[in-house]
């Protein structure tokens, strides 16, 4: 009897899991199929599988509709922002974690507390500042803003990790006479690689998809990032559902690939600080 219930329980469980998978991944699959069909095919039947696989639509979006520009802009902004974040974030985190000095916790708190700042408190002034200093509508301006936006989270993730490195390593290095910079470079960084990886992945995903700052600070067509560019196909006339779907896939696939390869590291990093 208990066996039967057990089996039923298992089956039921599996059903729930399967249902939820359909629910979570369904829309993604739907967009994937639509990205390979033309809009006229879609208007006939919205849910059919592609009869003919229109791979050329990706080419169209990429070359004829500026997607290569949008993708390029996103790449430039995200890569430079994440690189800068990793460097200055790890430097600051190392300092907070390893050095005891007056004001350490206070300064850390000041940076960390910015995590809860809603974007609204800074967006208007950032708009004014970038316009004033000629950084409005530039990729450099947007990248700098992105660094500031993600700095608190980055410092938080890295600091928690840096703090867990056993102090003996540092003492040994100091006794050996290593200057501070080398201690950072040769002791902290190599050990903290998992946390750095987590921060890099998280920042990349978040900034790749970022919209609010981009929409306020970039209006020039040639400087648009991918989230802004997706709206290109939403023009005056009937929504070009097929091409929008293709555009969406171009935006989604890189991120999904990054996650698929690095999912272990990412989860590790995120639960590191959370449990205990």
């Amino acid at each position: 009897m208990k066996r039967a219930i057990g089996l039923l329980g298992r089956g039921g469980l599996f059903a729930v899991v399967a249902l939820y998978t359909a629910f979570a991944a369904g829309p993604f699959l739907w967009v994937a199929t639509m990205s390979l069909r033309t809009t006229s095919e879609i208007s006939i039947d919205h849910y059919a599988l592609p009869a003919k696989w229109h791979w050329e639509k990706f080419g169209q979006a990429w070359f004829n509709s500026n997607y290569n520009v949008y993708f390029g802009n996103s790449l430039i902004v995200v890569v430079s922002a994440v690189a800068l974040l990793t460097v200055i974030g790890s430097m600051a985190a190392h300092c907070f974690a390893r050095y005891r000095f007056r004001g350490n916790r206070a300064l850390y708190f000041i940076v960390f507390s910015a995590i809860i700042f809603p974007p609204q408190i800074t967006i208007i002034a950032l708009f004014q500042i970038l316009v004033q200093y000629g950084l409005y509508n530039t990729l450099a301006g947007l990248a700098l803003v992105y660094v500031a936006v993600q700095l608190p989270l980055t410092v938080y993730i890295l600091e928690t990790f840096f703090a867990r490195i056993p102090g003996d390593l540092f003492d040994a290095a100091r006794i050996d006479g290593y200057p501070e910079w080398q201690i950072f470079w040769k002791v902290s960084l190599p050990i903290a690689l998992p946390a750095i990886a987590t921060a890099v992945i998280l920042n990349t995903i978040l900034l790749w998809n970022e919209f609010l700052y981009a929409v306020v600070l970039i209006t020039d067509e040639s400087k648009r990032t991918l989230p802004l560019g997706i709206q290109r196909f939403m023009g005056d006339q009937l929504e070009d559902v097929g091409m929008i779907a293709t555009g969406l896939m171009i935006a989604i696939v890189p991120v999904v690939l990054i996650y698929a390869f690095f999912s272990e590291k990412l989860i590790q990093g995120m639960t590191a600080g959370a449990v205990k």
Partner: protein
Amino acid sequence: MRTLRWLVAVLAVTFASAALGQQVKLTFWSHWAAEKIKRDFVEEAIRRFEAAHPNVKIEATWYEKNALYAALKTALRAGTGPDIFYAEPDQVEYMENGLLLDLSPLDWSGIEPWAKQIWTYKGKPYGLPLEAWTIELYYNKKALADLGVTVPASLQLSAGSFTDLVKKARAKSMTPMSLGVGDRPFPGAFLVHEALVKKLGLEDYANLLAGKLSWSDPRVVDTLKLVRSWTEAGLLPTTFTTLKLGESHTYFYANPGAATFLMGSFYSSRAFNPPDKGGEPAGFQVGIMKYPAVPQGACEECRTLAVGGSYVVNAGTKNPREAIEFLDAFVDPAMANRWLENVVVQTGLKADLSKIGGPHAAYLKELFAADANAKYFFGLPNQRMQGKPKEVFTQVFNNAFPAGTISVEDAVKQMNAAYAR
């Protein structure tokens, strides 16, 4: 001595010709990136002006409206910004902040006085009113014939006949009226304010919009109830809230087709494109009639006339003279006629109506017939209202009320509250 004089003469000539031949570059930002006919007209005007003025070069950038407004807001704030740009009269913030050049030097005798009035702020004019438009009730001649509805000689159905049309169309599973508010804040409101202006007359309607007449006035409530009776009978498409302006055109004449279409007379900018670019299919016969008469209306001839796309000059421009010269080139009956014949929508420029020809002469004749004997109220509600009343009006009467998601009582309450300080 002679060499010196000769040298001075040469230098003088060089300087003079340099000054005359000095290249002036004007930057020009405009809406209508996707509206080929208007864009062609303006680009032709640019070409003609550059030909007549070889030292002036005009660099034009074409935008979609929302993108243009965003780009302008930041550019003007930063103190940069184009020399000449597209604007509409509801953008009072430009004038309030001194961002526009006074256009008094233009030849205003060639421009309709009501158009000048719309662009006048504190006694000075600030815009060249190129586009003007009225709200017309377009109809599918064949569809109405099929439904057995005849348009009277006065071109205006009574409210009852219109209700009849709605019911007949629905009985044949045809949408009675195409209309969509997916991407614009004004089309849905056409239904309500065209009825209100007829019921109240010009003066009371102005008072209503200015908050001096209460929205609980029985005439207002009756009119709202009339419009509600139509929408409840299935007047509008089910996709009304998400249907875009461009899409509403194709909804009317191509797919799936509607009996009537309440739209500004800029209908032509999309309708007269080739069918594969969003235009009318071959053989489509469009008719124009007036908005139905409302019961006990104070002024059945009253209707809205709006100034649409206009061009203004940046107050900070380095080349005010050339900029004004460019705009002045538009003030010419030949230009106005060309606009009417090709773009097929009204204009604030004075035209020579005796000489109108062109490929759409028949359509123009119908348009003028529908506008005959009209008494105009100048400006759409969202051009005349600002701030909170405008926001509430848009949300309530453009979106919610025609869609049926707000009751007449609530709509009246919201509007009255919006004016309270």
